[in-house]
């Protein structure tokens, strides 16, 4: 384990109690007969990075997709339990998934820019939600999002060229810019670096670290080093159960559960 890096990440993190942004209680997810998530309780802290780790198929991505109701699009998927965003039940009848997803943005495993220009990619969210009026406002929003995603300098001269023409790492940062253009409160990242080379990965990780000042970030990752580097809290999932959840350094140095211990020392997974 890269212990020094872990501690750097923690040291920059001011100590003390924080507000809870998302609360999940007794969350169960079933795909038809398959019980994918079993009784997960978790409190996600505001303006911090929480990582979900675990072996393939453990349900960490499924749980992540519950947090912005992306699972709604899968007809056989059933979610029970309670998930509160700022104390409000996101599965309540009064909550529209489209608005929820503007507040809880998502970045996917494979960079998936629309086959449109860089500009239109970023402007898409604000436009459909009516957050911008007129050319000038849109320009400003696009620039702000691209700057925050650390992409502005690289693309400012090619805003109207296709977003699909960028490199893999740039595409993923474009997707982050697209997600934050609607001013979300939470940013979900589903293995955002798994399709990227180490340099692009480092760039994204730096970005995540910067973004946590403004956003609550939840990242699913296969790389334990990455979880250790970027997150303040870590949840370990195994076979649909959240085995352990706590401060990242504690999970990686002194876990309570034997299964967590086995996983982080590379005994399985």
């Amino acid at each position, binding site marked *: 384990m890269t212990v020094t890096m872990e501690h750097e990440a923690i040291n920059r993190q001011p100590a003390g109690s924080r507000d809870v942004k998302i609360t999940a209680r007794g969350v169960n997810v079933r795909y038809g007969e398959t019980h994918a998530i079993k009784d997960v309780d978790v409190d996600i802290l505001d303006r911090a990075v929480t990582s979900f780790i675990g072996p393939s198929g453990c349900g960490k991505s499924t749980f992540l997709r519950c947090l912005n109701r*992306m699972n709604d699009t899968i007809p056989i998927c059933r979610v029970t339990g309670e998930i509160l965003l700022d104390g409000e039940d996101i599965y309540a009848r009064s909550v529209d998934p*489209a608005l929820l997803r503007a507040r809880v943005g998502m970045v996917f495993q494979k960079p998936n820019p629309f*086959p449109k220009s860089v500009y239109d990619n970023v402007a898409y969210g604000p436009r*459909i939600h009516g957050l911008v009026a007129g050319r000038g406002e849109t320009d400003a929003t696009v620039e702000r999002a691209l700057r925050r995603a650390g992409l502005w300098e690289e693309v400012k001269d090619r805003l109207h060229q*296709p977003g699909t023409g960028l490199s893999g790492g740039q595409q993923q940062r474009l997707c982050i810019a697209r997600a934050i253009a609607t001013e979300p409160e939470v940013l979900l990242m589903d293995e955002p670096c798994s399709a990227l080379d180490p340099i692009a990965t480092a760039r994204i990780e730096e970005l995540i670290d910067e973004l946590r000042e403004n956003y609550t970030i939840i990242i699913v990752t296969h790389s334990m080093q990455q979880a250790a580097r970027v997150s303040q809290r870590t949840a370990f999932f195994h076979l649909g159960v959240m085995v352990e959840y706590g401060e990242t350094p504690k999970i990686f140095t002194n876990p309570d559960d034997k299964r967590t211990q086995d996983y982080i020392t590379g005994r399985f997974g």
Partner: protein
Amino acid sequence: MTDAATDAPAVDWSDPALRRRLARRHRGDMRLKAVGVAALGAACLMLAILVASLVWSGRHAFTQTHVTLAFDVSAEAVPRDDPADGRYRTIVREALYAHFPAVEGRSDQRALADILSDGAKWMLRDRVVANPELIGRTVELAVPVSDPYDQLAKGLVDPEAAEENRRLSDREIGWFRQLEEQGLISTPVNWGLIANADSRFPELTGLRGALWGSFYALLVCFLISFPVGIATGIYLEEFAPKNRWTDLIEVNINNLAAVPSVVFGLLALAVFIGWFGLPRSAPLVGGMTLALMTLPTIIIATRAAVKAVPPSIRDAALGVGASHHQVVTGHVLPLAMPGILTGTIIGLAQALGETAPLLLIGMNAFITQPPEGVTDAATALPTQIYIWADSPERGFVARTSAAICVLLAFLVAMNAVAIFLRKRFERQW
């Protein structure tokens, strides 16, 4: 990393038996490729033979023999106040008789007049009506000769054959040769094949009515089947719940694509004409019938194209909070468009060549006026070919082949449009 793996005997990669097996595998590759090339070659050859034989047998229809005569449009024969009411038949005949002063007697003169097409007097009339100043003058005009003489000019009548076995007697052939010697016979390109409407006389007949009929029928077919097909495909793929009912609908749509076209014709006859009371022989009914047949093709193509849109794009749009219809109209549909257009053009091309349903709704009638709208009686290209193929006059043999060539040209043009549209809509990932 089991023990068995480390104990495995070393593979001898230079073993001759292994080499032989490898050579056999390569021969297999070559055989497969050769079979493919042979199949493609055979298909191309057949196509070439088909097109070549059509063009060859249709070549005589691309020109039409004309005779140039001087018509004396006198003021006595054509009233100035009503030029349409002139005695053009007489004018035309007199112009011909002038070249044959020796031919006398009613029956001989009538036989002589048969050199000219029945349409000659109408052509002259149209010319004079369009320009009444010609009254009182002599008009030089090339008019078509009738079919037997056209065949003679094209070398399709054998003068060596016994006289009773050919359509023209020695005397008639002599008359025609005399006109040829005077340099009055010409064989210009037969634009009438496209510009004229249908006629019982091969030398006058053309595809104008059929082209317009096909155009209107396809227009109706497109306007109905394209939006309905896309909407159905999108609904089934994007919104419909997956249950027994949608399964049933899906199976039925796939079956509909395989229903014989004549059945659709019967349906149209019973429903559109019988119940709805829509006019017979109209491109409107034809187009509606063809739309029924094209719909399954478009629905299936739409569903396949929608299915092929990468889920990552859907996720991306949903992830920023797009509603379902925004995902469909903003992302799925544009990306599926090339596939949908390809399916549509395939469906329309099928519809263009469809004959059986049109026969049942009466689009094989003999109609000498091109349709001016979707409710006018009309024929379509395939039914026109059917009518001509059924006609006894020799001149229709070549014209049938020529009409098939026109139909094929129409198809090629449609496919070219499809390729153009697909290229325009296609996007780079």
